């Protein structure tokens, strides 16, 4: 029976409730919400003058009303040491979402930690140190002293290359300009950490190197371009599922206004199904290509567009490089870059060749080219906005494939123009501001392999859980656990010793191949099981946090409640680590090194913001951002006039391309040469197993599964990670809906729940990525591209049943996700 909250009435927001700007911190769209708080002993009334909405709440409110909130939008939280009522509801005046709430963001209130209502009791409240065989809660000073002593000793006796750091680089929940600066200053300024990686990939690198090398920043448009365009060209993305309010509030109006939709995806997604409803099936083209063949398709589209003369010749002449090869292929550039003619020498592909490799008809590829670039009957150019995400970012041959896609946008002049743009859709918001990472190098270190090889002695982890979100996860976990267990054993053996003796025992274990692990997170994560010190962080709205969304919209999401327990903003944790490092290094007589850890006298996250981002962008202050509200300002900010921040609606409107740093301002084309499976081991794995194991996302918990593992509404719907399969494949394997299964290959094993999905191709499955209850990364091989970008998407395995449906899985709905109107 479906989970019900059994709530029949909610407290009414009084007219004088406090109001805060909130940007949803889960996904990159960054929908605007408003938070309202008021004292526990007060409540509003139904009369218009008694409530925040000024309406008569004794009457039924109608569709799309602002004067309603769901039980998930309510909680009781701590504010300035007192319990208060909290409502967090969508903001009708935010241009991003226009009052639409998502199934994630509209649960922000419910997913706040509350000792009153009992929500999110998994949140960490105090530092913990591995002692006496368990994690013992302790003070910040005690925990940080141990962190600093071990880290300093290893760095001094060995080098900073023995310190390995996993850290977020994004905005929203864990990141933001405050926290990327705090961590960045610690690891890239006070130290020069080279062996670092990002939360979802095994190195410190861009996911879109080729777009940047071509001069095109990956977030160059405005969301309104989807409404103003002729064609939406979506590749390897499923926005109805993952960026629902971008889709509903910007793409759907475009479709309803006559835009056509092209979706490149091996499976029929909900975006395709819904687009058929909104635009009519005749205006939606699904190119269901064979997995991993995107580049061939793009090259054929480009070739057809060039051969038909549908290119934007003026744009190409004015804004793109003309002199043949500009950048040669080398170890840092997996493809050569240069003029259109230069790229065409490599990219030229006929429709028939592409049809053969991609498994779609030449006629459909031609139709796509027409929808992208064929001029209108009156001769005017066609506008096309191109968007892409993990299907190719985590796909085959990342660099060349993304390059081949950006080629099309450049050739048709669809960058920097209204109704254009070629952009990644993104995952988290952005919020990157750090000292230079140049010392990391390119290609950067494959950190997972570095650790697996037994290198590195100290591992600082910030809001990353590689147990769930890395590739080759089975091996990674085995090694990480074995190495960290060596240190746990050493600590246990040194029980009763002085701090100095314990530190010596830890360092001895490190020198014997052990790994000392410090985990900074909001919950006790799975990789946190290997930690020796656990440091509790807080989230957006428990601190002030600035981030920018997928159209570079910068907002301050305001603090409306206290951090849970003794948790702190990551920026202030980084500052405290630095201060302890300075103290310990001075005690060690390392004064010069200690001096590098100065400059962290931050009292608040605002201090961290002003030390980093604010110092480089003087117009951008908390005060100005508060005034800018939930609509904020689109970066780059170019000034402050008449009491308002002045931003930039879309990039490159002047036709000058700068992301690559070239002085000529000319965009480059990519010589995207097809080479089949790029990453090692993929072809062999494909040949050896029946099922392609695609990994996918689900709107219900995308970007917040770590919280939703403690949310009853979500756990009721998906008690196990879903593995969508064609029903005929399920019959073959003797699987009923809800049965538990495991996926096996040479890399490892993972498990999930059989979920019938008749729209899937046979012998393919779609497993949710990053689940705490079954990591798809367990079965992904370690193959990466030249710049250490993982190919998570291409993984093959065999499937066997491990159990009949459980009492939980038997009761859930397995009906089609597609709308039946």
């Amino acid at each position, binding site marked *: 029976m479906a989970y019900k909250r059994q709530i029949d009435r909610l407290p009414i927001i009084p007219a004088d409730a406090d109001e805060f700007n909130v940007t949803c911190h889960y996904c990159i769209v960054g929908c605007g919400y408003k938070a309202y708080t008021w004292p526990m002993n007060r409540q509003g009334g139904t009369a218009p003058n008694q409530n925040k909405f000024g309406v008569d709440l004794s009457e*039924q409110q109608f569709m799309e009303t602002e004067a*309603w909130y769901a039980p998930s939008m309510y909680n009781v939280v701590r504010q300035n040491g007192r319990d208060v009522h909290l409502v967090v509801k969508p903001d009708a005046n935010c241009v991003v979402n226009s009052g639409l709430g998502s199934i994630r963001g509209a649960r922000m209130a419910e997913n706040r930690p509350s000792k009153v209502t009992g929500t999110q009791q998994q949140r960490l409240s105090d530092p913990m140190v591995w002692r006496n065989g368990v994690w013992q809660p302790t003070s910040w000073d005690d925990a940080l002293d141990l962190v600093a002593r071990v880290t300093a000793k290893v760095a001094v006796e060995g080098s900073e290359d023995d310190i390995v750091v996993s850290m977020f680089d994004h905005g929203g929940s864990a990141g933001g300009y405050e926290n990327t600066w705090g961590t960045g200053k610690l690891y890239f300024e006070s130290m020069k950490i080279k062996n670092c990686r990002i939360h979802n990939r095994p190195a410190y690198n861009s996911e879109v190197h080729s777009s940047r090398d071509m001069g095109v920043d990956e977030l160059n448009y405005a969301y309104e371009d989807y409404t103003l365009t002729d064609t939406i060209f979506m590749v390897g993305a499923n926005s109805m599922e993952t960026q629902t309010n971008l889709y509903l509030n910007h793409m759907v109006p475009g479709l309803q206004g006559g835009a056509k939709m092209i979706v490149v995806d091996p499976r029929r997604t*909900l975006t395709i199904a819904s687009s058929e409803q909104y635009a009519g099936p005749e205006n939606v083209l699904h190119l269901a290509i064979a997995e991993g063949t995107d580049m061939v398709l793009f090259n054929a589209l480009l070739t057809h567009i060039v051969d038909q003369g549908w290119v934007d010749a003026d744009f190409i002449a004015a804004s793109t490089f003309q002199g043949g090869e500009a950048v040669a292929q080398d170890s840092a550039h997996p493809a050569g870059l240069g003029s259109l003619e230069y790229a065409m020498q490599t990219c030229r592909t006929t429709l028939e060749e592409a049809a053969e490799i991609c498994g779609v008809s030449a006629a459909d590829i031609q139709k796509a080219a027409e929808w992208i670039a064929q001029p209108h009957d009156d001769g005017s150019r066609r506008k096309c906005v191109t968007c892409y995400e993990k299907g190719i970012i985590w796909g085959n041959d990342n660099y060349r494939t993304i390059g081949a896609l950006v080629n099309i946008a450049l050739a048709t002049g669809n960058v920097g123009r209204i109704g254009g743009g070629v952009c990644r859709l993104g995952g988290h918001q952005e919020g990157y501001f750090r000292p230079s990472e140049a010392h990391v190098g390119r290609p950067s270190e494959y950190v997972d392999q570095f650790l697996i090889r037994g290198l590195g002695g100290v591992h600082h982890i910030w809001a990353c859980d590689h147990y769930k979100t890395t590739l080759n996860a089975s091996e990674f976990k085995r090694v990480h656990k074995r190495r960290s267990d060596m240190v746990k054993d050493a600590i246990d053996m040194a029980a009763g010793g002085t701090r100095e003796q314990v530190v010596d025992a830890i360092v001895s274990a490190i020198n014997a191949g052990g790994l000392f692990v410090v985990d900074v997170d909001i919950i006790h994560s799975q990789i946190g099981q290997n930690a020796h010190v656990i440091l509790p962080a807080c989230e957006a709205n428990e601190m002030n946090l600035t981030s920018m969304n997928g159209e570079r919209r910068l907002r301050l999401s305001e603090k409306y409640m206290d951090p849970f327990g003794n948790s702190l903003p990551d920026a202030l944790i980084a500052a405290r680590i630095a201060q302890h490092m300075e103290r310990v290094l001075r005690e060690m007589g390392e004064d010069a090194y200690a001096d590098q850890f100065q400059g962290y006298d931050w009292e608040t996250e605002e201090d961290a913001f002003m030390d980093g981002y604010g110092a480089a962008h003087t117009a951008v202050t908390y005060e100005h951002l508060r005034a800018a509200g939930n609509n904020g300002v689109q970066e780059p900010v170019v000034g402050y006039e008449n009491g308002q921040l002045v931003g930039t609606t879309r990039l490159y409107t002047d036709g000058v391309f700068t992301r690559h740093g070239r002085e000529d301002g000319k965009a480059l084309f990519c010589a995207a040469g097809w080479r089949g499976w790029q990453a090692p081991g993929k072809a062999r794995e494909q040949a050896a197993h029946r099922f392609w194991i695609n990994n996918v996302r689900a709107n219900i918990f995308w970007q917040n599964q770590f919280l939703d593992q403690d949310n009853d509404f979500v756990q009721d*719907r998906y008690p196990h990670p879903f593995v969508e399969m064609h029903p005929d494949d399920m019959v073959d394997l003797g699987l009923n809906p809800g049965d538990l299964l495991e996926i096996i290959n040479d890399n490892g094993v993972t498990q999930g729940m059989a979920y019938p999905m008749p729209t899937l191709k046979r012998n393919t499955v779609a497993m949710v990525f990053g689940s705490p209850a079954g990591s798809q990364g367990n079965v992904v091989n370690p193959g990466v591209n030249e710049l250490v970008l993982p190919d998570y998407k291409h993984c093959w395995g065999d499937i066997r049943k491990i159990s009949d449906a459980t009492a939980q899985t038997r*009761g859930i709905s397995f009906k089609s996700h597609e709308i039946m109107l």
Partner: protein
Amino acid sequence: MKCNKLVDAGRRQFLRGGVMATAGAVAATVMTPEQAKAQALARVDYPANRLANIADLVVNEPLEVAYPDADSPGVLLKLGQAVEGGVGPDGDIVAFSVLCPHKGWLMSYSAGDKTLNCPGHHSRFDCEAGGQQIWGHATSNLAQFLLRVDNQGDIFAEGVDELIYGRLSNVLA
């Protein structure tokens, strides 16, 4: 299609607004002790409203109802197969709010797979699984009306298990 007609009929009724709502219901700012006591119940007091008789129901054909008042449209269904929470001799009678808990659009019934579907943003709810959201944007499953059948086969609604869209109290003040 019948289901879409239901939407249209329902929308007309719904958008017409609160014709049944209490007129001029501005709460008194100072309550007498008696009033305070009357309003101090921890949960709302649900009416027991007769929705229909079993004889009125045809398997898999939705019957428009409203509960707890005329401004809260719902659907009464005889699914043809016993479901958890179903009432009546066959254990297959259920009733749900048809206001989508996402943005309050009126949903239509799909007899083909026994679901309620929102035309606004494509959320879907399973009438055979207690109104579980199959896929969508709502942050709750669908509000279900608690039913009782008496000896004459009259079907009464006597409660609701989720907050109905558009009201902060399931029974309006």
